[in-house]
């Protein structure tokens, strides 16, 4: 399949990565090569083979619903890029000025 720099830009936007034009040119042929190499899985995957999502046959694990102390707020906010009034401070969430 052909993967153009425009395709990569679209995927990067979905993945929330603002790639530069130079990166798009560099990555597009590499990603195309990887996708060609991994496409062989389609040849062996018969419809009647069940998928495996996990190594272990897992069932849900439950624990008692007990109130336990959470991490101290200051410990959590210490690693934040920005904090204000005991909360995470984030940039405006709307794309345009209201």
């Amino acid at each position, binding site marked *: 399949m052909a993967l153009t720099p425009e395709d990569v830009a679209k995927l990067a936007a979905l993945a929330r990565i603002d790639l530069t034009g130079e990166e798009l040119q560099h990555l597009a042929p590499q990603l195309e090569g990887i996708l060609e190499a991994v496409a062989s*899985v389609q040849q*062996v*995957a018969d419809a009647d083979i069940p998928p495996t*999502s*996990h*190594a272990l046959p897992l069932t849900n694990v439950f624990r008692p619903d007990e109130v336990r102390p959470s991490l101290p707020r200051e410990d959590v906010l210490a690693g934040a890029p920005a904090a204000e009034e005991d909360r995470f401070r984030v*940039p405006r969430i709307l*794309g345009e000025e209201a």
Partner: protein
Amino acid sequence: MNEHLRRSAADLAADIAARRISSEEVTRAHLERIEAVDEEVHAFLHVDGERALAAARDVDARVAAGEPVGPLAGVPLGLKDVLTMRGAPTTCGSKILQGWHPPYDATVTRRLLEAGLVVLGKTNMDEFAMGSSTENSAYGPTRNPWDTSRIPGGSGGGSAAALAAFEAPLTIGTDTGGSIRQPAAVTGTVGVKPTYGGTSRYGLVALASSLDQPGPCARTVLDAALLHEVIGGHDPLDSTSIDAPVPDVVGAARSGDVTGLKVGVVRELGGAGYQPGVQQRFDEAVALLSSLGAEVVEVSCPSFEQALAAYYLILPSECSSNLAKFDAMRFGLRVGDDGSRSAEEVMNLTREAGFGDEVKRRIIIGTYALSSGYYDAYYGSAQKVRTLIVRDFAAAFETVDVLVSPTTPTTAWPLGERVDDPLAMYAADLCTIPSNLAGNASASFPVGLAPEDGLPVGLQVIAPPMADDRLYRVGAALERALTEQWGGSLLDRVPERAEVSA
């Protein structure tokens, strides 16, 4: 070189417990060694000497007071920088986590500290464990102590190189597709990937949750087993943790008896495409196992041919989801927050600036494989191949007790050779990936140096889930016979590092 540096963890611990030497003295020797050689090797991203010495003095005080201590108490250790530890940075080899101090200990870390191990610092790794050479670390590559112009393997190149350069007698790694075993192979050290669920992933910054597994790295088989026992076992904080006792890995490592053990050589992992010296040392080691009483047969696992392709769809898919949490809002780097940009714009700029090439490649491949219209053809097909691989293992383990193969198709390659050739880099994990996809136990043990380049070769052993003890039985048998053959450990032949005075 200081006399303590080449000794095994088991011996050091015994002497510390008997007060023949102090943990402080041993720890200081290792800190001085790091100071002397790590500028060149670059196995460590972070070293905290004061904390290590305080921990060592604490063990010495407990021993002096007659308190019982664990079998590795007082022994220094390097922790891969993907496991959290309070009071130290965790970067995962990424700029996006530069300077982040996690507010909690990983379960593996907690168990190490409780057992009295002395954490020297955090070891270098490919960014978020994506890579096979440690060249994808945002903080510069680690160099292979056997030849500093070559890669130490990856992603846990720091943990492996620290052992081979005698900077630490024990380290912790994590293995998603070979990140413990492949570095062990190319540095002549021992690395074990426990059964999936055998060690806790709580506090391990996730790459691919269905594949990641922490494990022990050491210079001897017994040391690895002792470390395995410390970190292994059920953890309620990890919902995929196995609620069963740790297999008797220490007993197996002490025994090393392979009489009657059925060993299957995987036909698909060897032969054409493998470096001649790797194949030769592997074949010799298999013959040695046979001479020690093991029954060797050839086994075919045809689906393994598709394992690499399936892995490079499953892993990127899981990683694109797991790494979505690096959104510049709650922790880590934030770029471009100048008041004019929206949260989404800041997020996009931060991820662009904070992630390296390989992380971007895998996130984008994963995004593609999971996108509607391609999901069935890529991720869905890869999951079916995973089923075939699990079935191949199940069939093989009906007739043999363990499987063996070379750990990796080649010895350590020169730094830079594959850094912009992702498919060549991925091929390094050819033999190690099937075990992660099936979640069973596997390990790499040193079996000599390839004649053509004088670099270490590893033999991989794979055992059924929860039969981790068999790995150690085989490893100990090989170690004992080969040490006798060589007249010492393989690591006796690592070139002496020129120690620069601090």
